[in-house]
C-alpha cells in the first residue's frame, strides 16, 4: 500500500519567528490524524503548508495523486495544486464564513466544486447538492437559502457538504468544532465520524480540544513551539503520554 501523504522535514518560518520545524509523518489511506498543541505551536502553519495554502521553506509534502501516483505538492505547478484542492482535497475552516460563499445559496455552495470540475447539468448538480444537504442533516427546503440565514452549526455542516461533494480523499480540518455550542459540537462530531468512516476518508484535524481527537483521530501528533514533541496512537498518547508537555496537556483537561 502507498501512503496517502508523506511529509518529510517540513519547515516554515516567518522571518525570525518559527512557524513549524522539521515535521515528518506518514498518513495512510483511511487514517485520521489529529494535531494538538496550544495557540502558536505551529499546528495551523503546518496544516496550511500541507494543504498548499502556504509555501514551506523546506521539506516535501508527497501526496498520492489519483492519476499520477505520489507527487510533491510543494513543487508541483500551481494549476495542478489547485486542481487537487478542488478534487482530492477538502479544507474545513474553523469559521464557516471563510469556507462558504455567504451570498450564494446553500445549493450553489455545494454545487460550486462540481461545476469547478466541469459539471454542466443543472438537474444533476441540484440532485447531488440535495443528496449532500441530506447527508449533513440540512433540510432540502433550505437549499435556495443563503448561509447567512443559517445557524453556526448549520453553516459548518454546509461547509462540510460543500467540501465532500467531489469525493475528496484527504480532508484538512482547522478546529472544525471551534466556536460552536457544546451540544452542536457533539452533533457535528458524530456527523464527521460517520462520514469519515462511511467514505473511508483520510483526514488531518488541527484542534486544541482533546475530546475531539479522542473521538475522531486514530493517531495524534502533539506540537509545541513549532516542533512535534510526540506522536503515536491517539489513546496511547492521551493515556500514556511520554513527553513532559503532553503530560501537562493531558493533566490540564478539566
Amino acid at each position: 500500500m502507498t501512503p496517502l501523504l508523506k511529509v518529510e522535514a517540513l519547515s516554515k518560518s516567518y522571518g525570525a519567528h518559527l512557524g513549524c520545524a522539521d515535521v515528518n509523518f506518514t498518513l495512510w489511506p483511511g487514517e485520521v490524524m489529529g494535531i494538538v498543541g496550544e495557540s502558536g505551536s505551529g499546528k495551523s502553519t503546518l496544516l496550511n503548508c500541507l494543504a498548499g495554502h502556504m509555501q514551506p521553506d523546506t521539506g516535501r509534502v508527497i501526496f498520492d495523486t489519483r492519476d499520477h501516483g505520489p507527487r510533491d505538492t510543494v513543487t508541483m505547478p500551481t494549476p495542478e495544486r489547485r486542481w487537487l484542492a478542488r478534487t482530492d482535497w477538502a479544507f474545513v475552516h474553523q469559521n464557516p464564513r471563510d469556507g462558504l460563499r455567504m451570498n450564494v445559496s446553500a445549493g450553489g455552495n455545494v454545487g460550486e466544486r462540481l461545476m469547478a470540475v466541469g459539471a454542466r447539468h443543472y438537474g444533476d448538480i441540484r440532485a447531488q447538492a440535495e443528496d449532500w444537504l441530506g447527508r449533513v442533516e440540512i433540510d432540502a427546503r433550505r437549499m435556495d437559502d443563503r448561509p447567512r440565514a443559517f445557524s453556526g452549526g448549520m453553516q459548518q455542516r454546509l461547509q462540510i457538504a460543500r467540501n465532500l461533494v467531489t469525493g475528496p480523499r484527504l480532508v484538512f480540518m482547522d478546529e472544525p468544532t471551534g466556536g460552536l455550542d457544546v451540544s452542536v459540537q457533539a452533533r457535528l462530531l458524530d456527523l464527521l465520524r460517520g462520514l469519515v468512516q462511511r467514505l473511508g476518508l483520510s483526514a488531518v484535524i488541527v484542534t486544541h480540544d482533546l475530546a475531539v481527537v479522542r473521538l475522531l483521530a486514530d493517531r495524534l501528533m502533539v506540537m509545541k513551539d513549532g516542533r512535534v514533541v510526540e506522536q503515536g496512537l491517539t489513546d496511547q498518547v492521551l493515556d500514556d503520554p511520554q513527553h513532559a508537555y503532553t503530560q501537562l496537556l493531558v493533566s490540564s483537561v478539566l
Partner: protein
Amino acid sequence: MTQYNFAYLDEATKRMLRRAILKAVAIPGYQVPFSSREMPMPYGWGTGGVQVTAACLVPEDTLKVIDQGADDTTNAVSIRKFFARVAQVATTEATSAASVIQTRHRIPETLLQEGQILVFQVPIPEPLRFLEPRETETRTMHALEDYGLMQVRLYEDIARHGEIARAYAYPVRVEGRYIMDPSPIPKFDNPKLDNSAALQLFGAGRECRIYAVPPYTRVESLDFDDYPFTATKAAGQCCAICAAADSYLDEVITDDAGGRMFVCSDTDYCATRVAAQAEDAA
C-alpha cells in the same frame, strides 16, 4: 486639422495600443492591460473604443459608429465627427461599406465580412468582477481556468428565477479557454460573436484593458446542458417600420396612454430593408 497627429493620438501611443491589440489577438479572450490615455470625452462615453479605433485607423478606412445599433444618436454622431476631423477618414452608415465599425452595446444585423474590424466599447471588462472583487484573484482564476464560480452565478439564476436571467453582457468562453465579457450587448447578439469573419476588438478605457476575438474564433455562451443558452428578443414582435422578424427590436413608447411600437435597433439594417421594399414596390 494639422494641429493633431493622424487619428488624434501620437504615434508612440498608437504603437503601444497596437502592441496590446496584437497581444490580445494572439491570446483570444485574454484581457491585456494597456496605458489608457485621457481622451476628449468623459469615461463611459467610449474612451476605450475610441483609442482602439484610433490605433486601427489608416487614411483609406471608412468608419461607421453606432450606439445601441443606431447611427444617429449623440454618442455615435460625436465619435464619427471626431474621427472625420482628426483623421479625415471617410464615414458611412452602411454596415457593409465600413472597414472599421465602432459600436456601443450592439453587433450589426448585417453579417460582417473578412477585413472588417468591429470595435466594442467596454465599461467593465472583467466577467468575474461581481463574483470576486479582488483583481489579483480574478486574474489568477483566469490563469488557472478556475471558472466554477462563473457557473455558480448561472446556477443561482436558475435556482432563483427558473432560467439564466442575464439579458445582456452574457458571459462567453472564447476558443474553449478564457471566459470573456462581451460588453453589454444583448444576448441576442452572442451567436454573432461566434466564428465571425470580422476581427472583433474590445476596449475598456477606464479599466485599461484591451481584449480581442480574432476572425473565425469559437465563442460559446455559458449554459447548462439542461438549460441551454437561447438568444432572445421581444417575443413575437416584428419591426413596425420594416417588418423584420429576425432583428433585435427596441421598444418605443409613443404616447402617455400605453401606446408603444417595436422597431429595429439597427437603424442601417432597417433603412436598407425599407429602401429595398420601396424598390420592389416600384
